């Protein structure tokens, strides 16, 4: 499916991941324009409802990127995100959304190359999966 141009939303935290993405820009490290960034103060601020809404409004993939464990600017917002999103992942696959379509990961302010790599990998993964069709019922079960 070469002509499929997926929409991927990445929620990035202000202190680490956004800074990492910004650095990638400064260093002119190219990453796919499919990945659209939404800056939030902390990965712990990303309500599961934001992720679900992104899928509902047409995202084919969603990422939440925060500071590495132990590095959270607000001490443990990223751990809060980890706990919530582990639960959300289980629910998404029940609702017919493959688990690869959602990714929680960590990118520090210095890790521009890591940001680039994660953005590329996610885009490749979603391209392989194809567009997300939400029909409100599960046509075939996914793992």
């Amino acid at each position: 499916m070469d002509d499929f141009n997926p929409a991927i939303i990445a929620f990035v935290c202000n202190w680490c991941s956004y800074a990492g993405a910004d650095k990638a820009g400064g260093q002119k490290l190219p990453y796919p324009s499919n990945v659209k960034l939404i800056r939030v103060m902390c990965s712990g601020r990303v309500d599961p409802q934001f992720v679900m809404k992104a899928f509902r409004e047409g995202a084919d993939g969603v990422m939440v990127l925060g500071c590495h464990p132990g590095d959270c600017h607000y001490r443990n917002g990223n751990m809060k995100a980890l706990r919530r999103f582990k639960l959300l992942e289980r629910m998404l696959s029940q609702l017919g959304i493959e688990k690869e379509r959602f990714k929680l990961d960590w990118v520090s302010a210095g890790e521009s190359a890591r940001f680039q790599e994660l953005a590329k990998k996610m885009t490749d993964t979603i391209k392989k999966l194809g567009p997300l069709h939400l029909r409100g019922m599960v046509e075939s079960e996914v793992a």
Partner: protein
Amino acid sequence: MAQKPKVAFYWCASCGGCEETVIDLDEKVLDVVAAVDIVFWPCAMDFKYSDIETMADGSIAVSFINGAIRTSEQEHVARLLRNKSALVVAFGDCAWMGGIPALANLKSKKGIFNRSYLESPTIVNPEKIVPLEKSVYKGTEVTLPKFYDTVYKLDDIMEVDYYLPGCPPTAKIVANALAAVVAGQLPERKSVLASDKSLCSSCSRNETKPDSVIIKEFKRIHQVIADPETCFLAQGIVCMGPSTRDGCDYPCIKGNMPCTGCFGPVAGADQGARMTAALGGVIESEEEADIERVVSGIPDPAGTFYRYGLSASLLGSKRKDKI
């Protein structure tokens, strides 16, 4: 004598429990009967669809429709009532949010038919007969309504004016709604006719509700003897209170059972998203593998968090394509 307002009741994909609530109004049902003119109520009285078809558009004051929409017949009658009614109230969770029937959206229609008509251990069906929209029986063509792929909530297929929560709605909120209709004192259109707050806000166990990470393991209600005073969440038992609308007077909690969420989401929230956030917030663990272990204690999150409202989930049934 001034004409009494005309009222209709109808059921779609439902269990009959909502009809039962109307009866549960006890002697108050007599007041209702005295105050209104019931023009259609197939569950309780003998009416024909043609009784409604011949009425003028908008001539029914209010139609209370319970049940989700799974078949073409349900959609047809619901739309007919819409045309003939000034107000349509989605009565109960199935009409409001898909209800229990909408859990079927977690499986495919084909899988459900196979299971129900062919594979279930209690089925003997050597000729592999499954319901068909058209079939010929003794030379006569017989038809059945179309069975849709998806279970829809009522407002996926038409305009709905008000929503009554509950599985079924309690007699109290039904009586309040009826009184508001008769007195012409309904709130803003599209309102849910109950509180906007969460069940926790009025729950007697709220004092002991945890606000920090304390849960090392989720337990299911049949695995423990629950303390009758302490917040269920504090005991590691999933209670839907944080994401569920207040207004039921918490009979389940009083019976020492956790809330399963039948009053639907609090205003503006997605019930499953809110529950995921609430439960994630109280798990005591920082290790990914351990968190996996804890959340695996909720074996069916979608069915647990959307037990009564999968069609109203952000990822639910809103029609993306025509039925």
